[in-house]
């Protein structure tokens, strides 16, 4: 097709206009890829973290948590045994949450989380380096969240000393048994996990915990277990995990809508640049349009010629944008990693499809007006531009 070749040759990469137009679309596509890979990454890790932590069940919290969760233990640990007796309950994880410091991290506090060693496998994310506690003999060992491990520059087998208060002389000496994989949740990644009893002793919270996570055998027990918990603990707050997840879902939908908005605005700008380029091309090729019409090319052929031009701009721009988007998101990941923040990235195929489809749609839609203008040009007026 000579007409197609004509459209292809007109996209001379040496022309600044061609490059700028492709760049316009590429920025739109790249922003969609980078925003969504980060957005979906965060969404996945939040979901995973929530599922890990509160999989199908409830969280028992003290009624008055005005000071947040860091008020130490206010629920007797024996309540965990009572909850275990409820029919339909699978796993009960009494957890003590405290603040800790090290000499190395200075006033950068982190969470010290005490959990029963036998629950660690199920309640925590997988170990990335080293090993989980040996449930029978956890001793003075700990598991480090990945961000904290990086801050402490600690590896499995290393010794760390945790201070209960910033200027304490003496702390709790622990051996790192493993470093956990990323959850994507800052508080969980910047935490140290130690056996519950050890934590209670160190912080002087004997027999007390901060929260109790309750996991069900399956969802059919939700109502009965909730009813029993409400009966047993009228003065406690019982949060249903589904509520938490659904609230998080709502927040994530808003985040997604904002990302679509930002990506959409970038695309509109890209579209305007395609429209401008195709319009300029129509003006420059007025004589050629006249020649083609004289030879016998109809409105549909002329329309197609310029739509192809717009399509090519958006196809090249879209593909470039996808590549640039991947590189940008990876750079962002590396940049934040140096600041001890792990930014999870997820490249779902639908992001690539969305990005390329949007690029093509925007490119073609933006070319319609100038292409129609070219197609409807009066042949005698066009030929006079020679």
């Amino acid at each position, binding site marked *: *097709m*000579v*007409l197609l*070749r*004509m459209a292809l*040759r*007109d996209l001379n990469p040496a022309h600044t206009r061609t490059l700028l137009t492709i760049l316009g679309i590429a920025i739109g596509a790249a922003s969609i890829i980078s925003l969504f890979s980060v957005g979906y990454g965060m969404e996945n890790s939040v979901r995973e973290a929530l599922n890990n932590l509160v999989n199908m069940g409830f969280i028992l919290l003290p009624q008055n948590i005005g000071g947040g969760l860091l008020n130490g233990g206010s629920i007797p640990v024996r309540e965990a045994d009572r909850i275990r007796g409820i029919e339909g309950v699978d796993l009960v994880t009494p957890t003590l949450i405290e603040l800790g410091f090290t000499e190395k991290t200075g006033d950068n506090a982190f969470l010290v989380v005490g959990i029963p060693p036998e629950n660690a496998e199920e309640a925590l994310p997988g170990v990335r380096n080293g090993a989980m506690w040996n449930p029978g003999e956890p001793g003075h060992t700990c598991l480090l969240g990945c961000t904290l491990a990086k801050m402490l520059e600690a590896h499995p087998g290393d010794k760390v000393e945790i201070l209960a208060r910033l200027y304490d002389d003496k702390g709790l000496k622990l051996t790192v048994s493993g470093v956990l994989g990323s959850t994507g949740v800052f508080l969980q990644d910047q935490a140290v996990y130690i056996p519950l009893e050890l934590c209670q002793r160190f912080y002087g919270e004997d027999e007390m915990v901060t929260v109790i996570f309750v996991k069900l055998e399956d969802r059919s027990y939700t109502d009965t277990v909730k009813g029993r918990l409400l009966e047993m603990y009228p003065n406690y707050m019982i949060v249903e995990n589904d509520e938490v997840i659904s609230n998080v879902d709502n927040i994530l939908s808003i985040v997604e809508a904002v990302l679509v908005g930002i990506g959409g605005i970038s695309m509109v700008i890209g579209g305007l640049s395609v429209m401008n380029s195709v319009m300029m091309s129509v003006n420059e090729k007025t*004589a*050629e349009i*006249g*020649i*083609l*019409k*004289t*030879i*016998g*090319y*109809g*409105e549909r*052929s002329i329309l197609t010629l310029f739509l192809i031009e717009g399509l090519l701009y958006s196809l090249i721009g879209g593909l470039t944008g996808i590549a640039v988007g991947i590189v940008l998101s990876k750079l962002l990941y590396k940049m934040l990693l140096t600041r001890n923040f792990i930014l999870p990235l997820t490249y779902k195929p639908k992001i690539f499809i969305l990005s390329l489809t949007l690029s093509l749609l925007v490119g073609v839609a933006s070319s319609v007006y100038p292409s129609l203008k070219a197609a409807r040009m009066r*042949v*005698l007026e066009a*030929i006079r531009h*020679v």
Partner: protein
Amino acid sequence: MYRKPVLKVRNLYKAYKNGGRTHLILRNVNFEVYPGEFVAILGRSGSGKSTLLNLIAGLDRPSYGHIYVDGVDTVYLSETELTRLRREKIGFIFQDYNLIGSLTVLENVILAMEAKKMYSPSQRRKAALEILSRVELLHVAEKYPSELSGGEKQRAAVARAIAKKPSIILADEPTGALDTKTKNQVMNLMEKLNKEYNTTFLIVTHDPEIAKTSTRQLYIKDGEILQATTITP
């Protein structure tokens, strides 16, 4: 024996309005062109000859009258039908060559065949090369118009016009931009195509020398055809 004309112009008028005044460019033009003829329309600048050619090609609409191309009255055709008429039946040669600059000479010729959907793509290339050989441009087939001389450009334009085997070729001052030597070359080429391949030509020109190549001459003055002369070769 009755010969059916390729082109028949009847009672043709064209008027333009300019600054509230009406200017009559063509008045009561009548003539025919028969298959295989080489007709020259001679006239001074502003006499209305280019307007006449534009009306015949369907690039402009007459104010009154009829133009029949292969028996079809083009006055009643829609824009789409006029495009089809140009595609199927009319070849064009312009003073300024009007080649597509981003296509090679060969592609410019193929472009015309592609518009008419003649042959398969590989056959098109073969046929286009044959035509370029006929106009002695085979050596520049892969060159772009900007790399050609004026005479070569016009011969390429002639090749493009004959490529789709039209019923008639309309040429608007085809040698207007050429020097004497190349002008003669181009005219000899058109004469050769007319004699050897029976291609019908209608040329408008102000140059009486050019008109000598034609088999018949029509003179136009102030929008009226004055006389017709037939040259017997």
